[in-house]
């Protein structure tokens, strides 16, 4: 792999809440190289959004972040806020899931995109607005010069997501983190947005961290995949490692839960029984154990010993955190 632009080592995020300490992210590693796409998948609450907010340094003040976040080799964790501010939106930009709530209802979309530009460039408001119109046009908003003067609520969901993407791209960031950028959209619009991101990546060599629930999208656009479960990495590897050689029962469960058009539909969609544990509630053993179909085959270890990431056969750094040594055959 080419030298990564963004590297994350042993990232840990703990929230200090009234109910005690919540370890939302419990030691994850990932890296992404320019022009490449890393997908982070996992059920709701597995810590995907918290991880991306930690990378951006925009977590609330009750969060404690540990570990390393390296942007082009430069450590971001612990950097003073005014230093981080120069990086946010400039070198690393974020695309949010819900474009309606991510945009400020009181300002025109042109103003908001221009603001993102002005925050990192000493230009006149007029020049920034021109740049905003340029970007809005680029992300495919028809009649951008006129539409730039409209407010977020005057746009459709798909167009709003384009606005958010324009806002993220206006400073040509080196890393783009897209947190479920298409979940709120219907299928055809989803495809258009993903195409737009792919085009941008190709043109500017942007590294993309794509957080997604949609394994279909992941299969199509990702180079590498990180599967998260309860704040930890369950499995990581290339996209082919994951789709052809998944080693963690949880990954297999996710794959089984994905509707496929290349195989005849089963009477019912497979889902993983049970629900993910709340962060920190499982102190010993494998966090996935209560829902795992393979526990009996492995035995005691799943309950007493927490599995670490260990190498698995595959294309490169394929790793999974499971006591099952070889690839489990699918049980149904």
């Amino acid at each position, binding site marked *: 792999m080419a030298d990564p632009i963004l590297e994350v080592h042993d990232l840990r995020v703990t929230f200090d809440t009234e109910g005690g300490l919540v370890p939302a992210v419990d030691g994850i590693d990932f890296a992404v190289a320019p022009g490449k796409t890393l997908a982070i998948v996992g059920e709701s609450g597995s810590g995907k959004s918290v991880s991306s907010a930690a990378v951006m340094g925009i977590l609330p003040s009750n969060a404690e972040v540990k570990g390393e976040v390296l942007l082009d080799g430069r450590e971001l964790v612990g950097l003073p806020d*005014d230093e981080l501010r120069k990086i946010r*939106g400039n070198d690393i930009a974020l695309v*949010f899931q819900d474009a309606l709530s991510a945009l400020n*209802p009181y300002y025109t979309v042109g103003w908001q995109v221009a603001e993102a530009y002005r925050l990192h460039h000493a230009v006149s408001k007029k020049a920034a607005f021109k740049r905003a119109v340029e970007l809005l046009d680029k992300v495919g908003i028809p009649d951008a010069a006129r539409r730039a003067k409209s407010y977020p609520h005057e746009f459709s969901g798909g167009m709003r997501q384009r606005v958010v993407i324009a806002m993220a791209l206006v400073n040509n960031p080196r890393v783009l983190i897209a947190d479920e950028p298409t979940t709120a959209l219907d299928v055809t619009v989803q495809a258009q947005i993903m195409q737009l991101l792919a085009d941008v990546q190709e043109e500017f060599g942007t590294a993309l961290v794509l957080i997604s629930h949609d394994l279909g999208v992941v299969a199509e656009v990702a180079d590498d995949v990180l599967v998260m479960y309860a704040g930890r990495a369950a499995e990581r590897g290339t996209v082919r490692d994951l789709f052809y050689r998944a080693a963690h029962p949880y990954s297999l469960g996710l794959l089984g839960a994905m509707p496929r058009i290349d195989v005849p539909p089963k009477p019912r969609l497979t889902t993983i029984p049970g629900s993910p544990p709340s962060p920190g509630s499982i102190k010993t053993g494998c966090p996935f154990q209560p829902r795992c179909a393979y526990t009996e085959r492995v035995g005691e270890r799943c309950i007493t010993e927490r599995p670490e990431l260990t190498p698995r056969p595959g294309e490169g750094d394929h790793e999974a955190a499971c006591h099952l040594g070889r690839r489990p055959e699918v049980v149904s």
Partner: protein
Amino acid sequence: MPGLVWFVIRRLFSALLVMLALSLAVYLVFYAIPTDPALLACGKPCTPDRLEQARHFMQLDQSTMQQYLNFLKGIVAGRSYGEGAAVLHCDAPCFGYSFPLARPVSTLIADRFPVTASIALGAAVLWLVIGVSLGVLAALNRGRLLDRLAVGFALIGVSTPSFLFGLLAILVFGFWLNMVPVNGYVPLTESPVDWAWHLVTPWLVLAVLQASSYIRLTRAQMLEELNLDHITTARAKGAGERRVVVTHGLRGALVPIITLFGLDLGGLLGGAILTEKVFSMQGLGDLLIDSVGNLDVAVVVGVTLFAAFLVILANLVVDIVHGALDPRVSHG
């Protein structure tokens, strides 16, 4: 725009109906009181003959309903009292004539309004600035000392009667410290410096008391606003903390604050009764209280209607401003 014009016309029309109903109510209430305003005008010794004359001159010998109709007619066409050499004209629009003060009601209101307006406007600017800044600071320091102090200050403010606070202020700053004049009003046109100097204590007294509700409202609104997703977007763009709080946070909190402000100001412009009494300033509130004592129904009706008109006007302005401040609201 035509939508807005229609909106204003509709609202003014309903305002007219409200004021008609209100004026009728004041008439009916006033004539239900078993006292005779003519007694005051009749002089001493008051023979039954002269009393009858006075009642006839003041048109009190007519039925309540007839008097009310005379009042309405006077607004449109003017009216006159008595006949022959003693005739008294009140030109249209005639809102009644005060016999005790020997002036048309409209002249009285025009004389007194600048005093009340001076008190109200100056105080309003102060309480808005104090209330909003303390509210924002409290929200930003939630749970900390500054927050507690601001909330405590607000609590004292709402629970202290204005006359008590006003008298204390006069005692301390006027008499003990001898810093400011203790009473009286100097017109702005006469001497702007003396005008402000005489008003500074009533301004501060009113502002400190009124600021309470603005502190609480601003604090609550800001806490809500700062939790919204688009605030995170602003941070992710690289906006500094002040920009996040003011440009993005306060902007959203503005609508309810401005709404409360418009209504408070509208109410106060109709007469700051206690403040005017305490500081011996002859404003509308002072006029109203004296007229109630004099059984001067014409003035009571006139001032009440004027105050009601200001409140209705404030509502209308607030609604229009609301539309201008929130792009999602449209009048139609």
